[in-house]
């Protein structure tokens, strides 16, 4: 029976050769794709592990401040640890790229040569292979570096630069801009002595533990090593060291000052306590005096009232006196005038008397004696008269003078009284004011009394407060004593760390450069394995749809055979053997192509060779790969088909004979009144749910692959675009030995290297303190709290952080955790950075207020190269950013083609299946008079609903899956984070592509509709 069923199966192949060929192409293509990736990944992983042993790959490396001395080295070696110097110098060569120069390796991380031999003389060199490939360098070429010429004698790779990035924090390999060179030790020393390197020499040691101790043990030993400052010739280091020592002294002095200040403060507080006690006493006395003060104020107010009243009377008297004085003045004035007139008249009268006297004298001398006698007598009378009147006249003159003086005195009296009068008004007003003032004073004294009462209470409280202050102050002073002691210890400890010779300790597990390629392809391996199984399940399910169709068509035949005694397993074999054989053959073809074709495993491996610096490796075919490629397709096909048709083959013979259709409720739903064509389409979709589901499943898988390609494209494109567009500085200098002054035109920053874990990978994250006015980074969202930080976009996306989130960073030595809160996210994309206020950063790391160790600028700065740790330019970033797009182009194209092929083939086969199943009905409706276009509307265009609905569900679903899987698994090892969001046009494009492909498929299948004739109905009837 099995032979018969096999024969029947062979005829089935012949009958459906196109269908099986298409499925075989699909399965073969999937196996080829998956095996190519898996084979490539497994080859790289296995051979990398072999090379790790052969090349004596380091267990880790450490960087020191100054080279280890002989004693320190002996200590390590005698304990069983292997150590080798991997010192290096960086040089910029003519094309602007940077070459890191090492001595030839002898023990650890040995160089593998792709071509040629190691450098044997001082003018020979081995160059790293990726750099040579990018620059077209060949054996025998001359290479200029550091003012010397080297002949390239070898092209090779070093395992500690498997990912040849210049800095561990670099996002991508850029072999155009960075490479390695290995020369003889004497050539290296010669270069070193020339001093033309871009930065100071890096003292890196590679080590192998050889089972002698653990990493922690070695690290502890290395941390004990201290360097002698005097041994270091570097003038920049000496300057830096003096600065550091000076800062220590400043700190110690500051702490002493603090201690002294605390003691003085304690004394002062004790004095304050005494003063407050006296104040309490004084205030008590003041309170006691207040009643007397109030009584005095009352008396004073009463006196002021009397004074005001008296001054009023006085003012009235002065006014009356003033009026009398004025009148007196006037009268005396008139008297004085009369006296003047009297004096004048008296003078005239006197003059007349004198004339009369003279006349009488003259007559007395007359010759007439009578006359002379009479005249003599008269003369005597007049002489007496003159003499008498002379006294009167003098009296009159005295009266006149007296009245004049009286007049003057009266006038002054009047003036004085007038003044007094006017002043008495002011006196009166003043007395009133005095009275009012004393009244207010009295009120004030009352309030003062109340205030004094309160003051007494307050002073009492003050007193007790000061007592507590005294106690507190004593405790504070004691605390400051303790602080001083602790701080001194701490400062000693802190400054002791700086004397530790160990700068970086990097075990191999944390070194992204080592075994980067096998780490990277591990993701490919697991993804390919998973996607391969999903694809095979899909294809097996597609096959099962055909098998189910055959089983349904041959239901009555199966029933008849069962009735005749044929066993179910034989029938199941008959239906499954062909798909299984087809899947097996396809698997064999896919495996052969993947293993032997140049575009199979070798091509996939080449993608790694084009990015990583790897030793020569060839494709390896592991047994697992063969099992996956040769066995899995057939096994999955058998399993899926058995599961799907089992239900049908377990029906009773009678049920099969009658071809009873299992009731499927979903198919028999009532649709109510609808227009005919939409109604028919829905019925058709319900009828073909299984096929529709397969189409959707196929679309989902195809979209998953296409969206993966698009995600990769967007990721690479954004690395390229955003890294450049959102880098606003042109130069970033980091110092090994910081300067005191910020170079003119530069913006200082404090850089501290920290790490953060993500999905098992430890990434370097730069904690950057920036000034608020730094024009290259948006710091506007930063608040005043020291714990607030701004994230670079790459960091925020990598760790899925948003504003308001809290997170921690780990110090480079892993000993400390720093907690921060996200205040904002800026657009910086080129590396993972966390920005904070520069002063807060200085405080956090115990640096001085003017400390900085990095500078940003928009133009080159004059900084001595010996000071620098690194220089990063925007051009470097631009160059490195393009690497991703270039390296991923072929993968993106392959994935898109694979997705499209899966979609088209599955869609074609399934819709064709639907049409085949509906062939009789198509024929029937054609009998009724339906035209081809109408039949297409009914049976083909209805699928558009399914495709549109499927696309609308699958596109966002696939995107959501990738949004989770892509950053967390596929690029988890990449040192950047990016927005995974697609621009809308990509969604539109994918949707349009689906519709376009469906349109093409429907046009092809329309031919099938056209070929279906009404005669089919007749055949069925006959």
């Amino acid at each position: 029976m099995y032979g018969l069923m096999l024969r029947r199966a062979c005829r089935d192949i012949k009958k459906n050769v196109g269908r099986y060929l298409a499925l075989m192409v699909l399965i073969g293509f999937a196996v080829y794709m998956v095996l190519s990736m898996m084979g490539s990944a497994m080859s790289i992983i296995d051979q990398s592990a072999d090379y790790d042993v052969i090349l004596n790959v380091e267990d880790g490396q450490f960087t020191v401040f100054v080279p280890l001395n002989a004693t320190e080295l002996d200590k390590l070696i005698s304990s069983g640890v292997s150590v080798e110097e991997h010192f290096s110098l960086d040089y910029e060569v003519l094309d602007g790229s940077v070459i890191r120069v090492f001595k030839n390796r002898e023990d650890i991380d040995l160089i593998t040569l792709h071509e040629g031999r190691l450098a044997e003389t001082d003018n020979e060199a081995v160059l790293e292979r990726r750099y040579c490939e990018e620059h077209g360098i060949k054996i025998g070429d001359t290479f200029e570096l550091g003012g010397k010429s080297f002949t390239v004698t070898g092209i090779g790779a070093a395992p500690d630069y498997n990912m040849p990035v210049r800095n561990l924090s670099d996002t991508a390999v850029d072999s155009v801009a960075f490479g390695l060179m290995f020369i003889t030790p004497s050539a290296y020393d010669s270069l070193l002595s020339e001093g033309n390197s871009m930065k100071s020499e890096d003292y890196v040691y590679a080590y192998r533990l050889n089972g002698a101790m653990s990493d922690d043990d070695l690290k502890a030993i290395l941390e004990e090593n201290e360097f002698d400052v005097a041994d270091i010739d570097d003038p920049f280091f000496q300057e830096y060291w003096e600065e550091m020592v000076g800062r220590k002294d400043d700190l110690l002095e500051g702490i002493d000052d603090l201690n002294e200040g605390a003691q003085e403060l304690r004394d002062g507080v004790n004095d304050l306590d005494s003063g407050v006690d006296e104040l309490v006493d004084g205030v008590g006395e003041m309170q006691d005096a207040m009643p007397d003060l109030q009584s005095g104020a009352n008396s004073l107010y009463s006196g002021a009232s009397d004074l005001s009243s008296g001054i009023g009377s006085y003012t009235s008297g002065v006014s009356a006196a003033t009026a009398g004085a004025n009148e007196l003045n006037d009268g005396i004035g008139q008297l004085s005038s009369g006296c003047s007139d009297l004096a004048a008249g008296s003078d005239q009268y006197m003059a007349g008397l004198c004339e009369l006297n003279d006349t009488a004298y003259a007559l007395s001398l007359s010759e007439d004696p009578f006359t002379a006698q009479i005249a003599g007598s008269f003369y005597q009378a007049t002489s007496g008269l003159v003499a008498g009147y002379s006294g009167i006249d003098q009296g009159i003159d005295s009266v006149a003078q007296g009245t004049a003086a009286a007049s003057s005195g009266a006038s002054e009296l009047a003036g004085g009284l007038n003044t007094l009068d006017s002043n008495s008004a002011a006196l009166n007003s003043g007395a009133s004011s005095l009275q009012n003032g004393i009244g207010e004073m009295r009120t004030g004294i009352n309030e003062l009394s109340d205030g004094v009462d309160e003051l007494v209470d307050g002073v009492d409280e003050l007193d007790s407060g000061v007592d507590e202050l005294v106690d507190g102050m004593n405790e504070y002073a004691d605390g400051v004593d303790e602080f001083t002691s602790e701080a001194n210890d701490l400062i000693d400890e802190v400054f002791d760390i700086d004397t530790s010779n160990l700068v970086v300790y990097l075990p191999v597990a944390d070194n992204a450069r080592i075994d980067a390629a096998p780490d990277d392809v591990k993701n490919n391996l697991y993804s390919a394995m998973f996607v391969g199984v999903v694809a095979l399940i899909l294809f097996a399910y597609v096959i099962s749809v055909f098998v189910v169709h055959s089983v349904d068509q041959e239901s009555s035949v199966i029933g008849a055979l069962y009735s005749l005694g044929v066993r179910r397993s034989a029938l199941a074999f008959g239906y499954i053997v062909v798909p299984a054989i087809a899947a097996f053959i396809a698997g064999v073809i896919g495996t052969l192509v993947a293993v032997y074709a140049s575009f199979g495993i070798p091509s996939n491996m080449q993608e790694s060779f084009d990015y990583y610096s790897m030793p020569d490796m060839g494709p390896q075919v592991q047994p697992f790969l063969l099992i996956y490629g040769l066995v899995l397709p057939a096994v999955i096909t058998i399993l899926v088909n058995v599961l799907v048709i089992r239900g049908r083959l377990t029906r009773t013979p009678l049920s099969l004979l009658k071809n009873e259709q299992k009731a499927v409720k979903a198919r028999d739903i009532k649709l109510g009144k609808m227009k005919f064509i939409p109604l028919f389409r829905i019925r058709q979709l319900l009828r073909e749910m299984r096929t529709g589901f397969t189409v959707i499943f196929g679309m989902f898988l195809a979209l998953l692959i296409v969206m993966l390609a698009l995600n990769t494209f967007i990721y690479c494109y954004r690395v390229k675009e955003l890294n450049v567009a959102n880098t606003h500085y042109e130069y970033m200098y980091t110092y090994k030995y910081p300067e005191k002054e910020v170079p003119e035109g530069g913006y200082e920053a404090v850089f501290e290297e920290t790490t953060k874990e993500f999905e098992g990978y430890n990434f370097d994250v730069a904690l950057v303190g920036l000034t608020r006015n730094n024009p290259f980074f948006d710091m506007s969202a930063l608040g005043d709290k020291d714990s607030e930080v701004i994230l670079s976009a790459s960091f925020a996306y990598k760790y899925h952080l948003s504003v308001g989130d809290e997170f921690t960073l780990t110090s480079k030595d892993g000993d400390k955790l720093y907690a921060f809160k996200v205040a904002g996210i800026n657009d910086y994309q080129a590396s993972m950075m966390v920005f904070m206020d520069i002063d807060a950063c200085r405080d956090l790391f115990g640096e001085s207020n003017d400390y900085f160790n990095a500078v940003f600028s928009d133009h080159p700065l004059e900084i001595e190269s010996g000071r620098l740790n690194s220089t990063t330019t925007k051009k470097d970033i631009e160059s490195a950013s393009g690497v991703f797009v270039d390296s991923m182009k072929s993968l993106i194209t392959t994935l898109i083609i694979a997705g499209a092929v899966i979609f088209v083939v599955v869609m074609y086969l399934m819709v064709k299946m639907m049409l085949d199943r509906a062939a009789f009905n198509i024929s029937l409706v054609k009998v009724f008079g339906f035209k081809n276009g109408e039949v297409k509307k009914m049976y083909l265009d209805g699928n558009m609903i399914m495709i549109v609905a499927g696309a609308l569900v699958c596109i966002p679903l696939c995107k959501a899956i990738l949004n989770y899987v892509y950053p967390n698994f596929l690029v988890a090892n990449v040192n950047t984070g990016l927005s995974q969001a697609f621009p809308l046009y990509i969604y539109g494009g994918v949707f349009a592509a689906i519709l376009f492909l469906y349109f093409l498929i429907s046009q092809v299948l329309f031919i099938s509709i056209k070929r279906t004739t009404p005669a089919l109905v007749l055949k069925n009837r006959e």
Partner: protein
Amino acid sequence: MYIETKGLKKSYGEGGSFVQVLKGVDIGIRAGEMCVIQGTSGSGKSTLLNCLGGLDSIDTGSVTVAGTSVEKLKGEKLADYRRKNLGFIFQFYNLVPNLTVRENIQVCEYLSKSPLDMNELLEVLGMSEHADKFPSQLSGGQQQRCAIARALVKNPKVLLCDEPTGALDSKTSRDILMLLEKINAKYDTTMIIVTHNNSIKNMVDHVIYIKDGEVSKDYYNEVKVPACDLEDL
């Protein structure tokens, strides 16, 4: 004649498998009449029906239906011909299984610009209460009534019935024939019934016998027996 064939020949296969099914059939059927084409299995009666319906091409001769030369029609014009003129009833009903009775009838309602009222038709055919059932929920007679309703809804001028009672029991067969009789009377539909049942010829106007690809008898019944009185169905 409303339907006419002249010298109609049809053959299948080549060489050793060549079969001449129709060997020059000449028939004429008037409008509105019920005609039975009877014959043994393999006589060519169904092939003749298919040629009348434009479902099968002819080798030579002519087929004219309502003035249309069917043999000259191809593709869309042939579809137009069937759409405008013909209704089909099959032995095994050929209902679309995942459409309800109403929806199956809608299939042909869609084809006509002036279809008959579906509810009235369902009433006439006694299918109103089954309108929302699926074919699998119906008996054979009910399925055939549904198939008749589907054929009639577009109000065809000619109804081609290929063994309409072939899969039915006697009682149901009578019901279906009574129905066809009723429809012929009500809508004046020309009916051609292909059958091997000997009783049906008594209820129709016109009887044509086909034997070995040729018309062996062609006559009109002077007296028709109503379907309800037919025996040996």
